[in-house]
């Protein structure tokens, strides 16, 4: 425990200096760390509230990706005869829907999170970054639940377990990281320009079709394939398939995607920090 650190941060010797903030500045990691309990409490709140007063409760976390998988399997797998690299289509699409559903929900909810928490932002101080972070954290619980569903599915379709599964935590980290960067950027943009309330869902919709969720990347001509990895979600989705379906990793593609994620993360946090100080005045 680093409660000693907190004691220093919140403690009686702590000196708070408030000055005008100008230009770009670094994220205050120490402050963010000191407020980690708030992050936890807000995440827990989002998780608890999400399924309160719903009849099916937490079952929704399972039902949503399962239903989407069923529809996609019928429409794209059966009717459109979408190729799936020789893997049963349901499991092929489900392994991609896992990270995609999380990502789509995470950036949509974190995009709205700041505007939705205006009552907090205008009444009490804490690092504002906590708000989009906590809304992403809540989605993580759903991701874990739907990952657990995949295992019985794999045995049903007789897709063997491989050593690749060990890379699952890394890929989950990658998708969280990608969602963090883009979610943070969107949340700040939504405060500054309310248009993003409308842009975001639309963008998410289009984004799915440029990500190999319903189609295999092998459908794209060889020479264009690398270009597709400029979309950070391509690397993540393909990575998830490699993990669960035991295929080889495309390390070059994955590195491109992670690099772009990193870029989004840095830009997202930097832009957020830059406009953070105006939130209370604008919101």
């Amino acid at each position, binding site marked *: 425990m680093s*409660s000693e650190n*907190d004691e220093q941060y*919140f*403690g*009686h*010797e*702590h*000196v*708070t*200096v*408030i*000055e*005008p*903030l100008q230009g770009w500045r670094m994220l205050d990691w120490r402050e963010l760390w000191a407020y980690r*309990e*708030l992050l936890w*409490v*807000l995440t827990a*709140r989002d998780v*608890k*509230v999400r399924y*309160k*007063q719903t009849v099916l409760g937490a079952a929704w976390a399972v039902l949503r990706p399962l239903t989407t998988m069923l529809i996609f399997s019928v429409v794209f797998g059966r009717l459109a005869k979408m190729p799936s690299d020789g893997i049963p289509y349901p499991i092929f699409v489900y392994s991609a829907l896992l990270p995609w559903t999380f990502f789509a929900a995470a950036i949509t909810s974190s995009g709205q999170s700041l505007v939705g928490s205006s*009552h*907090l*932002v*205008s*009444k*009490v*101080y*804490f690092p504002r970054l906590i708000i989009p972070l906590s809304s992403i954290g809540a989605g993580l619980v759903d991701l874990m639940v739907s990952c657990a569903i995949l295992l019985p599915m794999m045995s049903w379709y007789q897709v063997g377990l491989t050593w690749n599964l060990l890379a699952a935590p890394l890929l989950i980290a990658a998708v969280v990281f990608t969602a963090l960067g883009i979610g943070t950027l969107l949340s700040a943009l939504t405060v*500054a*320009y*309310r*248009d*993003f309330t409308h*842009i975001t869902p639309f963008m998410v919709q289009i984004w799915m079709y440029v990500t190999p969720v319903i189609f295999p990347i092998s459908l794209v001509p060889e020479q264009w394939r690398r270009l597709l990895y400029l979309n950070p979600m391509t690397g993540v989705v393909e990575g998830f398939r490699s993990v669960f379906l035991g295929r080889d990793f495309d390390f070059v593609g994955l590195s491109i995607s992670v690099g772009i994620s990193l870029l989004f993360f840095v830009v997202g946090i930097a832009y957020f920090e830059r406009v953070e*100080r*105006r939130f*209370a*005045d*604008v919101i």
Partner: protein
Amino acid sequence: MAKSAINVERVWKEYAVGTTHPRHGTFYDLLGHAMKAPLRLLSRAEREESAATRFQALRDVSFEVQPGEVMGVVGRNGAGKSTLLKVLSRITAPSRGRVTMRGRVASLLEVGTGFHPELSGRENIYLNATILGMGKREITRKFDPIVEFSGIERFLDTPVKRYSSGMYVRLAFAVAAHVEADILLIDEVLAVGDADFQKRCLGMMGEVAREGRTVLFVSHNLTALRNLCTEGLLLNAGSVESFGAIGDVLQRYALGASGEGTSVADFADRMDGEIASLQRVSVGLAESETGASISIATAVSIKVRFSVHKPDSEIGVFVSCLDESQNMVFSTGSFFERALSGVKLAAGRHEFSCEIPGNLLNAGDYTLDVSLIRDRSEVFLSEPAVVAFHIHEVGSLVEGWNWPIRGVIRPNLRWSARIVNDSAVEVREAGSDRS
């Protein structure tokens, strides 16, 4: 010498107003700007600074609060009190200047910040306390006292949306009351709820003050300020008008800027009010009086000047007078006067006035809430505690009587006396009453 707990040095806070763009920028505006000057896209903030219309909520504010002092901040609506609290709470950054605070700071700008209606009382205690900056162990330690203070043990696991508003406020306040900090920033909106509850809030604050913590308290309740605070700060139009011992500051507030028994509140000549906007509210010795200051015996005149933007509106002025304990002494509306009821006003400036006769109110401090009302029904503008005045005691009226004359009002009643020593007459009169 010990360092001050709060040190505010030349703080300014400016807002861009008037332009349609900065507050809720749309992407369309951004695109427009981007086309005109692609490279300046990222410096939007700086461009806003150059906008012609700016509003200064705080102008060059400096003051210090020593550890253990309880400072009351007074001023009319729009004087910058809330902005000052927001800057000190780090909700909004100052435009210029610097604030240094030593010790753990907790700001209580409202009760129940972050309360979620779907969550139970128990869950909300943890949520709210964490938001106010308490650690998990600290909350666990204080959980029972909080529950006990709030008196909602039985409903601890009920979602707070099923609470009555009274229970909700009590629970929220219980959490706030248990925040441990060296410096407390408290807005008077904290003291909501019924009179009994307000008393508890103020009692809690008195306790906090005695514990030697530093408190900055914003309020319109002059008695509370007088009783709780040692220091005072009077803000007027964003500037510090008076700073020092609470008694002096409150007197200055009651007397107004002129210091001659007249209290005047000027409002920026805004044209943004849809129907009408207040320009000036003043209270002072009635013109018919010859004395120098308002006393028990003198009449007090109230004048409300406002601009009508929408012609042919029926606008009335409503004034409520509150005493030191926030009891409403009386309220009156211009439309109670038959001649002024139902009259449509032309666009432009109008002044409505009335007089409180002498020998009506008791000695003490009074504040006036002023509202503008349309069509005798719709309150469209309301300014609490806009002006204050003090009614002086006039010496000792009676030789030998040395106690204060108590009461909310102090009418000069005509006393008469007659001799009733004829018992036969009395009995006969009583008997005739009975028949």
